[in-house]
């Protein structure tokens, strides 16, 4: 199970059971904790629906009470190839 976190201005941005593109950061312990990835994913308020878990922070860093489970479908590479 992986732990992820996302920043949104409004929890409504996290529509359930539809493909979303989000910038999420890993909360897994270790040196890479808090590094980001851009991903295609689906989220659900049913915490059992997906294995990975997602917690949410709002605009100024406040932790939201809303919790989700998340399935990362794909990694999205936004960065132009010349920088990779």
């Amino acid at each position: 199970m992986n732990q992820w976190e996302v920043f949104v201005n409004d929890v409504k941005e996290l529509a359930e059971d539809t493909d979303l593109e989000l910038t999420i950061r890993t909360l897994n312990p270790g040196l890479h904790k808090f590094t980001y990835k851009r991903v295609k994913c689906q989220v659900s308020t049913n915490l059992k629906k997906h294995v990975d878990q997602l917690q949410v922070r709002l605009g100024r860093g406040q932790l939201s009470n809303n919790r989700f489970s998340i399935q990362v479908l794909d990694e999205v590479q936004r960065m132009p190839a010349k920088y990779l």
Partner: protein
Amino acid sequence: MAAPRSNREFIEACIKSGDAVRIKQEVDWENEAGAIVRRACELAAPAPFMERIKDYPGFSYFGAPLSTYRRMAISLGMDPAASLPEIGKEYLKRTNGEPVPPVLVDKKDAPCKENILKGADVDLCKLPVPLVHEGDGGRYVGTWHAVVTKHPVRGDVNWGMYRQMMFDSRTMSGAVFPFSDLGKALNDYYLPRGESCPFATAIGLSPLAAMAACAPSPIPEPDLVGMLAGEPARLVKCETNDLEVPADAEIILEGEICPDYKVEEGPFGEYTGYRTSPREFRVTFRVNCITFRNNATMTISNMGVPQDEGQLLRSFSLGLELEKLLKSQGIPVTGVYMHPRSTHHMMIVGVKPTYSGIAQQIAQLAFGSKLGPWFHMVMVVDDKTDIYNWDEVYHAFCTRCHPANGIHVYKNTTGTPLYPFATPHERKYSIGSKVLFDCLWPVDWDPVNDVPTLVSFKNVYPQAIQDKVLANWTAYGYPPVK
């Protein structure tokens, strides 16, 4: 006492004078180190030198480097007990002299080259990048550092302290505002051409190099460091670009600023004491090489409520740079001061009110200068008011500033996204507004019949009576006044 030439010499000097403590127990990079620095700032306590960091053997942290005037005095090689006006006078003396250009040293004489990571080895997570505050948008690599760039046409070098968040192992995102020197170079040259801008971030600088990087001075920062230190700064060539960086810095990140790609930055605890500026797509830095000293020390400034470097040092240099500007225009200012507790939002200017409109002239110069986006209040008091004494300034404000004639509001100026009072729209577009509090008696008032007399011990009694009362004070039965 000589000015410390490196962060290491500075730590030693601070430990010796009791202005830093060695923390030997292991400290977590996630929140704990940040919390220690924050509490030290809020208590004006000695700076924490954290010698062991969880997950990062061989690295250390030094926090709150210049969050007290004592440490500022030490950084200038002065007596730690020097008063603020003395420190200010010294800063003005040194920075009004001739520029002292840096010297280039050989790689073998540059401690920052002791370890070099390139190619697939580059990973910012190999450095103990702290999570400074719970809820921040990321771990911040650059909180007390210099981002080094060079203007591609003019060739002038810029060192600026622009916060940098780690986005992933090789990418950082930073708050480089369009009115900053780097922001101007990007908008002027690199972005329109789609060219990437070489940069180097130097972390763990000598305190005077850090002071120069956040000083709003027109003097190129490497020369300014030399002027402040009284000897040339030692620079060394980067590994992967043409830039030169402080040879004694603890950590150097080299790379390019992407003109065509942005990632999210923030939110982050800020110098105003709030997390205000919205998470935004900001200037994006791609790291191609990391070099660092053995046993490197990462420096941390923790922004929040007063007082940290954001308020103390920036108030100091913004005030003194404004004083230089106003004097260069021949305005008879007696001094300029920002109380750090104003989070460098209020400039207090003392002036001899020799002609009408002088307060407006001061405000227009101040707000219209390069310093202007960083404060929104100018309060002008006369030359008899002690600008360092808030009780006197506040008294002048509450009694002399005419509510209809003395308060002047300027709308639609340059602002920053960091102003807590600004509307969300203003923050998004850096729209500011400013106010002048003119606390001068109008020059068209008859000084004898119209200007009120200040009723104070010092002002209304003859000198002979004052001397007598002072000489007899304890004889009257009062305890001595310290």
